[in-house]
């Protein structure tokens, strides 16, 4: 097994800038120069078989990087999905800013040549024998496994909920997909014309894009104001936990803004049932009593958990706060499984304190690859993930807060002078125009 370095150590500044200019020019001609961030990354020769489960942003970013950095490895990607959704764009679709067509791409175009794509879902993990079983019963042996399945929306925990009715009777949820995000906008648009009573909710489980329920609330308020209907509508936020966001300083900022916007927040108020036809929601209170509220519009971020294949496997946390959801038991720093050394986790599936966002994936994919390479070389994982995540928190059409933080709730702005609590056009432009291109570069393994 040998290790070699490509180009970068001896690459002059002029050469780098020249390459950059060439890449920019190539953009205009559609020529891919093959320039990647891996010009500075280690490449090793290995005959290892690496299996990646899941073709979300994490899975795609991983296989693209592994293809470039593992010379001779067999790489298998397991996922039945043929369409890739840009999930950070769902809030833009659900609030009438983007058309739904902007958030879907085909997986086939994002999976590099040389990767064996098994178009099935993983059904069972057998880490003791280094095997994954697919839905058709195919058994895949692996030397190294990376679990990037994403998570499971668990609407079933809400009695009476039917996602097929999203878009009608004031029922809304930004999470299930582009079509239902568009249907959510239809429901919001209808509500802003008529006014009435809106209920915004937050479940008790860890959720992906934890800012989405807040963005939906800010945007509903904004859309009502734009329509001149704010005084003919009420918005109440029911949080199943004792906050609305996990980072205290951001939580307080949001609460302050909502107080000014006349959006009361009800803590420890968990949505447990919805009567869609009657437009009535039931919330379980901290003391166990039930509060029943009529509504004209309701936004439902569902409880979330690990997919059954992970939840019911030995890979899930066996005890502690992440065991209930069946989240993957990884070390939060190295992202290596705590009990199975040849297993790593990446993305939403990880049972870590924070970070079910695309920003976390962007930062953690290279870390997982680097640590996997260390392992293949017989070394311990060296690179430590600090839990970075980011949320461009829409506060109205045209402005957002650029919130970045880590596991320890430290605000970690990427650029000097960024004010996370400042309404910003720059943050809006990132969300509206620039994040999707950078997301695609992550999926292609260049960032």
């Amino acid at each position, binding site marked *: 097994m040998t290790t070699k370095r490509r180009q970068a150590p001896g690459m002059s500044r002029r050469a780098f800038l020249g390459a*950059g200019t060439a890449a*920019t020019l190539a*953009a*205009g001609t*559609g020529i891919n120069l093959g320039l990647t961030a891996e010009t500075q990354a280690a490449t090793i020769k290995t005959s290892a078989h690496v299996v990646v489960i899941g073709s979300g942003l994490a899975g795609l970013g991983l296989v693209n990087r592994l293809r470039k950095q593992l010379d001779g490895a067999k790489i298998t990607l397991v996922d039945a999905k043929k369409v890739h959704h840009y999930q950070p764009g769902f809030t833009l679709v659900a609030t009438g800013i983007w058309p739904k067509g902007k958030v879907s791409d085909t997986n086939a175009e994002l999976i590099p040549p040389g990767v064996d794509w098994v178009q099935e879902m993983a059904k069972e993990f057998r880490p003791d024998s280094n095997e994954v079983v697919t839905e058709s019963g195919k058994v895949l042996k692996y030397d190294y496994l990376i679990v990037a399945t994403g998570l499971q929306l668990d609407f079933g925990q809400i009695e009476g909920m039917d996602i097929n009715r999203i878009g009608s009777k004031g029922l809304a949820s930004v999470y299930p997909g582009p079509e239902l995000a568009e249907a959510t906008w239809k429901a919001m648009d209808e509500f802003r014309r008529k006014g009435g009573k809106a209920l915004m909710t937050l479940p008790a489980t860890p959720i992906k894009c934890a800012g989405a329920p807040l963005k939906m609330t800010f945007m509903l308020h904004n859309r009502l104001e734009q329509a001149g209907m704010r005084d003919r509508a009420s918005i109440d936020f029911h949080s199943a936990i004792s906050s609305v966001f996990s980072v205290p300083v951001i939580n307080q900022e949001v609460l302050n803004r909502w107080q000014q916007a006349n959006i009361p927040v009800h803590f420890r108020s968990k949505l447990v049932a919805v009567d869609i036809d009657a437009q009535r929601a039931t919330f379980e209170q901290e003391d166990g009593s039930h509060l029943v509220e009529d509504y004209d519009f309701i936004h439902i971020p569902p409880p979330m958990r690990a997919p059954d294949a992970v939840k019911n496997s030995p890979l899930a946390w066996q005890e502690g706060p992440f065991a209930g959801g069946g989240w993957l038991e990884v070390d939060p720093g190295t992202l290596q499984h705590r009990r199975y050394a040849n297993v790593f986790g990446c993305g939403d599936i990880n049972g870590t304190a924070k970070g079910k966002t695309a920003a976390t994936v962007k930062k953690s994919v290279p870390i997982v690859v680097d640590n996997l390479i260390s392992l293949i070389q017989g070394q311990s994982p060296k690179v430590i993930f600090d839990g970075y995540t980011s949320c461009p928190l829409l506060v109205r059409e045209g402005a957002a807060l650029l919130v970045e933080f880590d596991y320890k709730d430290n605000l970690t702005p990427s650029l000097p002078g960024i004010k996370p609590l400042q309404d910003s*056009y720059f943050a*809006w*432009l990132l969300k509206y125009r620039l994040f999707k*291109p*950078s997301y695609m570069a992550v999926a292609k393994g260049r960032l």
Partner: protein
Amino acid sequence: MYEIWLIINTFYELAMANLELVVGILVAWLALMVVAGMKKTSAWGKGFMPALAVAVLVWIAGFVLVPGLTKSSFSNVTYFWDYLVVAGVAAGFAGLAAAFVWPASLLFRRAQ
């Protein structure tokens, strides 16, 4: 260095997502350059001032209009990074305008 790579990749993917527009602009510009360059006595230096003047005008207009063109408004431009980004995007439009005006002004001069 990573930030530079991030910017390059972001604009590369942005261009890929708008490939027809990018190629169209590039082809039109190259055609203009070829036509201007075919003039035997093309005085490229004389095109500089008109190009600069148009660039300045486009930059000023862009600075005011860019937020509105991106579903925002100038009232949301509130601090250093906002102004920097608006100025940068406006500069991009200004540069593009200058790139077209420079050769075009040479043709216009000859027509006179």
